[in-house]
């Protein structure tokens, strides 16, 4: 993929549940190697945006492209370049770590041999290879998340979507997760779109997308957004950008 083609391109995206507008003309880009943090209060439209980018359903208006492939017109090619870690744990608890990963590899058409190589590589990278034959039920929350991230990377995606992956993790596990994701962006040139409401997870080198009431309220590198709002902390910028409509 050419470096000029954004890993994720969202244009004029709108979506409504009946009369209630969830997204209204949303647009942004995430480049390779960029870690974009999607911030927004509850009900801002983050979940809807993730449902649309994972093509759970289609938006009637707007366009989503993953690595230059239209999600609507060329959905299989677009989804092949996407890795996702959902907010809810989605591993089969009664299957082993390796069985869960093999299932994912099969869905992405990897051969058995290739799958075993990549499973080993991804699990070793996160110190989980020795536990590959354990049932997921036996793992703690932090380790399950590591397995989910390994799974999302098995097919070498261009874009990684993370939907509040640190929810429910203790402080050391959260820190390890944040560090690992940032390292992935640097070492693999991976683009990450990370939905969170935990401001302390945001690094200085990250970019920010602030979503509120279905609209993008700010977009840019952290320092640009802070400068634009005339504040010194992400927390202050966030409160200022999402104050409208609050009781």
């Amino acid at each position, binding site marked *: 993929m050419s470096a000029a083609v954004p890993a994720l391109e969202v244009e004029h995206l709108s979506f409504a*549940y*009946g009369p209630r507008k*969830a997204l209204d003309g949303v647009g942004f880009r995430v480049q390779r190697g960029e870690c974009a943090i999607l911030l927004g209060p509850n009900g801002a439209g983050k979940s*809807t945006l993730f*449902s649309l980018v*994972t*093509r*759970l*359903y*289609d938006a009637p208006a707007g366009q989503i492209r993953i690595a230059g492939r239209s999600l609507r017109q060329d*959905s*299989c*090619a*677009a*989804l*092949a370049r*996407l890795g*996702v870690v*959902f*907010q*809810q*744990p*989605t*591993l*089969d608890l*009664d*299957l082993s770590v390796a*069985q869960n990963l*093999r*299932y*994912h*590899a*099969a*869905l*992405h*058409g*990897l*051969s058995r041999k290739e799958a075993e190589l990549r499973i080993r590589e991804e699990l070793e990278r996160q110190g989980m290879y020795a536990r590959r034959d354990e049932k997921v039920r036996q793992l703690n929350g932090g380790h399950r998340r590591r397995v989910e991230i390994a799974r999302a990377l098995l097919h070498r995606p261009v874009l990684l979507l993370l939907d509040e992956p640190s929810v429910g993790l203790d402080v050391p596990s959260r820190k390890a997760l944040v560090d690992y994701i940032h390292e992935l962006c640097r070492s693999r040139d991976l683009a990450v779109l990370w939905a969170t409401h935990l401001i302390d997870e945001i690094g200085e080198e990250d970019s920010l997308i602030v979503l509120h009431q279905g609209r993008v309220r700010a977009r840019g590198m952290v320092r640009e957004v802070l400068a634009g709002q005339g504040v010194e902390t992400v927390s202050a910028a966030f409160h200022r950008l999402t104050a409208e409509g609050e009781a």
Partner: protein
Amino acid sequence: MKPLHYLRALRGIVARELYRFLHQRERFISALVRPLVWLFVFAAGFRSTLGLAISPPYETYILYEVYITPGLLGMIQLFNGMQSSLSMVYDREMGSMRTLLVSPLPRWFLLSSKLVAGVAVSILQVYVFLSIAWAYGIEAPAEGYLAVLPALLLSGVMLGALGLLLSSFIRQLENFAGVMNFVIFPMFFMSTALYPLWKIQESSELLYRLAQWNPFSQAVELIRFALYGQFNGMACGYTAGATALFLAAAILGYNPSKGMMQRKGGA
């Protein structure tokens, strides 16, 4: 996408379903206990009160247990289809359905593969049940055990597709009790699983019509004839038609542009 990709994905989905089933021993046992109770208790109790005339595919007078066996095979598949549907609603609530739907393959293929995986599990259950019934003395002709396999495939896909269709409408697990009351029980009792059509007609013309048009009746008759090495063209055509209808509606239900999920806003 290459054909090999489709094949690997199908193999992966079926293997996952079989692993899950084998890991959940309680599910395996409870799936067998239900029809066995019907066979050993219900059918034995009714043996003396229900007289059955000779009717195809049977060539002699038969015991009620023999009559009810194909119906119980259908019952295993009916419950399995609904169980799959329940697990899809559960998967959707838990989010694991999304890991399937986000795969780079057409949605119709992913859903059909999930269906095939469910049918593979139901056929495994059916053959275990048939072997217990055989040990109990309910024997079909040897070739019938092989001939019934394609019939079980078709009926399994039909009932699985119905389950899939229902799962696209049901948003929460709690609503599933309604499916039991409004779908499974009426389908089972208003069918030829427990009594032949002519017997139903003696009691009520309306019930007879309902049972006749019930796709589950046709699936049971397809299985019944196949188990005795015979082909019932009408039952096969009807079951195939119902399969196509249910499957098309289910795929539409999960369609990203037109489906029910979009309207409900849930995964």
